[in-house]
């Protein structure tokens, strides 16, 4: 007590006006807040090291088995929808890695509905940082590195075994596809979370697009009905997260008639999808703040 009074008495008056607040660019503030909250979750996870090690291993095993089923399939057939194993591996690796990155970064966004229902969402709204960043970093889980690891391994296997002439452009396509793909999946996550302001238990709808979407993309488009392929090309643009750029790399025809330059569009499609998702999020948040649920 005496100490704090002494500090106070040496001339530093308590100023009631909010300090340290300047108008900073919101995206940067969001990323910073995301980092702070993510670090807290990582520390929380590390409070239970053994449990973390086991879930990480479990996560890796489950995702690994997923590809093993494809390997088993190829012990009986030579091609699936006209695609050989290395080609399937490329599709699989691209989509799995992209989805894994997104799942790591935004994986618990579907908790928004639950938070709205139990009222804890309000506690996020009284913080001086963007709500989207807080929601995105919610329950950040390092165990989701498992899927990325698996995706990269499969991708590596595809690159080594594929019998194609690699040009610099084709090599550049791979990281571009993964990053754009992650952004496209991210847009779906955010739009899905926004929808939960309206329907609080809609997380399954979102899962059908995200988890369902990534499973879809792991197989060649030739084995699906054309309407479905059109749907994931033009409506929910998941096809840009793997199929279109991957088919260019493989030198294959896309079942829906599209010019070849479409294969280079993923970054633009990703930017557009994210912009739309951002608008959806704002609309969702606005409806929450005027209805209070």
């Amino acid at each position: 007590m005496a100490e704090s009074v002494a500090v106070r008495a040496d001339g530093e008056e308590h100023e009631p006006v909010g300090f340290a607040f300047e108008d900073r660019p919101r995206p940067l503030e969001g990323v910073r807040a995301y980092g702070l909250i993510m670090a807290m979750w990582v520390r929380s996870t590390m409070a239970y090291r053994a449990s973390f090690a086991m879930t990480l291993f479990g996560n890796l095993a489950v995702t690994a088995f997923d590809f093993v089923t494809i390997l088993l399939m190829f012990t009986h057939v030579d091609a699936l929808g006209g695609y050989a194993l290395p080609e399937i591996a490329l599709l699989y690796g691209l989509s799995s890695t992209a989805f894994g990155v997104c799942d790591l970064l935004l994986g618990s966004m579907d908790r928004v509905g639950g938070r709205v229902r139990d009222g804890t969402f309000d506690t996020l709204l009284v913080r001086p940082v963007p709500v989207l960043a807080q929601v995105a970093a919610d329950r950040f889980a390092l165990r989701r590195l498992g899927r990325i690891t698996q995706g990269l391994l499969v991708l590596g296997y595809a690159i080594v075994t594929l019998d194609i002439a690699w040009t610099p452009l084709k090599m550049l396509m791979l990281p571009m596809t993964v990053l754009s793909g992650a952004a496209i999946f991210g847009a779906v996550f955010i739009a899905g979370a926004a929808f939960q302001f309206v329907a609080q238990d809609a997380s399954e709808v979102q899962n059908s697009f995200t988890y369902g979407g990534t499973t879809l993309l792991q197989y060649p488009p030739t084995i699906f009905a054309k309407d479905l392929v059109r749907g994931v090309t033009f409506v929910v643009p998941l096809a840009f997260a793997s199929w279109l750029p991957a088919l260019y790399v493989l030198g294959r025809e896309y079942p829906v008639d599209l010019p070849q330059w479409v294969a280079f569009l993923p970054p633009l499609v990703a930017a557009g999808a994210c912009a739309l998702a951002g608008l959806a999020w704002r609309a969702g948040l606005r409806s929450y703040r005027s209805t209070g649920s």
Partner: protein
Amino acid sequence: MADDGFISLDGVEKVFEVRRRAGLLRRERHEVRAVDGISFRVARGEMVGYIGPNGAGKSTTIKMLTGILTPSGGRLRVAGIDPSRERTRLAQRIGVVFGQRTTLWWDLPLRDSYRLMHRMYRIPDRRYRENLERCVELLDLGKLLEVPVRQLSLGQRMRGDIAAALLHDPEVLYLDEPTIGLDVISKVKVRQFLKELNAERGTTVLLTTHDLTDIEQLCGRVMVIDHGRLMYDGSLAGLHEVGESERMLVVDLESELPPIRLESADGGDQPALRAVKVEGPRQWLAFPAAASAAPLVARIAADYPLVDLSVREPDIEAVIARMYESTP
């Protein structure tokens, strides 16, 4: 707008649209006016109790004041800021404690949650250290800083939450049921702390509570809300007058006796108290809340074989209910 209070509300409304199922597929829409035209001013440094029955509109008002909800009508300002339009900017200047929802990190030591506040609110290092030291001392958190939050008792966690809301030197502190579920010692500590905070820092405090003792010990001013309207705004003593509330003297006599009667001290027709219930040697005697209990007790002790006694405060729900009946 110089005459504006630090917190000012002018005819603030919040209307929710609720859809109710009416028949198999048909749904009826109807409006619920959670807050129905509330106006008040709170000056900087005031400590105000905001009370009312469940569902009266207390939380809705607090949510509008913090910018969580957007008002449907009226004008609302906190420190000159429109909360719903500049929620993030306002957040830097207010502290909020939701009694039943902790904002602390469950699996981490208390100190880690404070470090997050330090960085999230960009509190200057020196200010942070001072404030933390002060909170730790006054809220008795010294031994708890390294304990994971999940191991804290409810009272300890509430103290931890209050500290977390104050590290960034907010000008206003909103407390939603800060003493709910706490043991007596924790309640005393929390009240003591809030009193000192208000006295030393001039922090404006607005608290909702069901515990009348909170109001008695902390708030010079109390606002009562019911059905979304402000029913009363003034001192606690005034509230008892308006609500014609009564306190209850419970006396244990040596033996079973007929109901105690005391004539009015100033010779009026109204007796000084009335017996509400008699159960063997124990009697329940009601008297106006504004009257002092001491002379009554002295007179009873002089005339009756008194063994033991206690005074029960009127409960706020009853006061409000009575007030509501008397205003058509």
